[in-house]
């Protein structure tokens, strides 16, 4: 969205290369910056920002909605991947452990699962059932759908960090195959959100057909999940 030249590379040890232990991270010159918040700040310091045109109240709203997405969608995705037993056995363990030989794959995925369950317990999500989590996701999508309305982007004509964040999460939910389709069905209930995702995909990703990065990014999602 900022029109910055970027090359996407996939690596198994990406989490370990990152300074904060989390992906994604960018490597620019001799600097490495990870996670969305710091990357946005870094890019802004270099002179590219999507939210310059917003006034103070709109910036406050944007930050609030980004927190809502992080709070609800991200936590729900983590819950579904790591706390729902069926999904864990059939999809997450094989996927997470696939780059490593036995027994390392089982050990690492159990370790990650234990970490995630501890976090869920601390924030009070451990006691939630799958239905409650799906209901929370529905509420969040409802809020996002109401905020988007009939506009092309969340803050009218120009995309902002919020659009990028929402696209990232919704696209993942819509294209990731799980045991059941309940999560993606919740998102598909809101036609303006699916239209939003399709619009961004067409505009920013399919527009660079010859660029291998887009193809590598999109095709790498599917095989990992079989």
């Amino acid at each position, binding site marked *: 969205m900022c029109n910055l030249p970027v090359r996407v590379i996939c690596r198994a040890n990406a989490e370990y290369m990152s300074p904060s232990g989390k992906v994604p991270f960018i490597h620019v010159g001799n600097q490495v910056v990870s996670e969305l918040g710091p990357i946005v700040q870094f890019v802004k310091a270099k002179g590219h920002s999507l939210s310059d045109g917003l006034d103070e109240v709109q910036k406050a709203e944007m930050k609030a909605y980004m927190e809502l997405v992080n709070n*609800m969608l991200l936590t729900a995705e983590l819950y579904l991947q790591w706390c729902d037993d069926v999904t864990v056995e059939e999809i997450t363990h094989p996927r997470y452990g696939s780059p490593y030989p036995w027994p390392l794959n089982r050990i690492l995925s159990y370790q990650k699962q234990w970490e995630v369950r501890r976090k869920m317990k601390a924030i*009070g999500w451990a006691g939630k059932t799958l239905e409650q989590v799906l209901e929370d996701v529905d509420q969040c999508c409802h809020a996002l759908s109401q905020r988007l309305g009939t506009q092309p982007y969340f803050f009218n004509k120009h995309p902002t960090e919020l659009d990028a964040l929402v696209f990232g999460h919704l696209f993942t939910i819509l294209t990731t195959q799980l045991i059941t389709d309940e999560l993606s069905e919740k998102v598909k209930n809101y036609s303006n959100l699916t239209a939003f995702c399709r619009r961004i995909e067409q505009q920013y990703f399919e527009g660079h057909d010859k660029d291998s990065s887009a193809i590598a990014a999109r095709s790498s999602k599917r095989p990992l999940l079989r």
Partner: protein
Amino acid sequence: MAAPMELSCWDGGWGLPSLHPESLTVMAYAKFSGAPVTVNSVNNSWRTLKGDLPVLVSEDVVISQPAKILNFLRKQKYNADYDLSAKQGADTLAYIALLEEKLLPALLHTFWIEAENYCSVTKPWFASRFVFPLSLYLPGKMSREALNRILLTKGGPPLYSLTEVEAQIYRDAKECLNLLSKRLGTSQFFFGDMPTTLDAFVFGFLAPIYKVCFPRVHLQEHLKQLPNLCRFCDDILTRYFRLTVSSHSPAGQDTADANLQKLTQLVNKESNLIEKMDDSLRKSPQHPPRKLTTLKLAAGGEESSPMSRLSP
């Protein structure tokens, strides 16, 4: 709709109906929506064993988390968000998420983890609301849970030490307060002239920071530089809770008196224990009779000398 509803929540102090952010949120919402809820301040009872207050009991239904309690009240037609548009409802959810992510860690830290605050204010206050022997164990447990929560959600690398995490959460909290202040602007409540769910949540989180007198108060000082948020809290207290907005000196005086009283009680208890030990030593046959000083029940440092004399 006429079913009586009873809300159990934590007691209050320093001019607030409750010290617990979630209890305050639910009480404020009940007032805003006009729900006929009788409030029971939980004090010195075994109900605090589970510790997940506030709890709403209506006929046979028991509901425990603030979001669920508010949902229940809305289903009973006590809805403070009736006049909001769909977009405003969405904004409410977003701002509540902002509060929980950015402000709640700092609030938990100020109450439960900052050593001076915890030892001098939070622990004695909560310990006095629990039945003995829970008062010895539960405040520590609540403090550990708060620390756990902060470290698990905010403490990932590259923030390895607690001081770095603290610096980050206070920065986030101050930014959150600034954002709330900008959003509120000069209007009375967040969505016009009538208070809504968002106002209840913001009040629940801000009022404890604003009113409770802690030794370490940098978050409170930052809040006081945002006059519209202070005015917001005071307005709700005077209009809906009919509590006079006392200035800090009488509240401070009350706290000092209460602390002195507690200290006197503690000293008296210890002195009683020492007397009993005295008696049992005198009566036991193995020890030769020796002169034991009589103990005086005075507040202050007298307790230390008898204790040192009796230690073997």
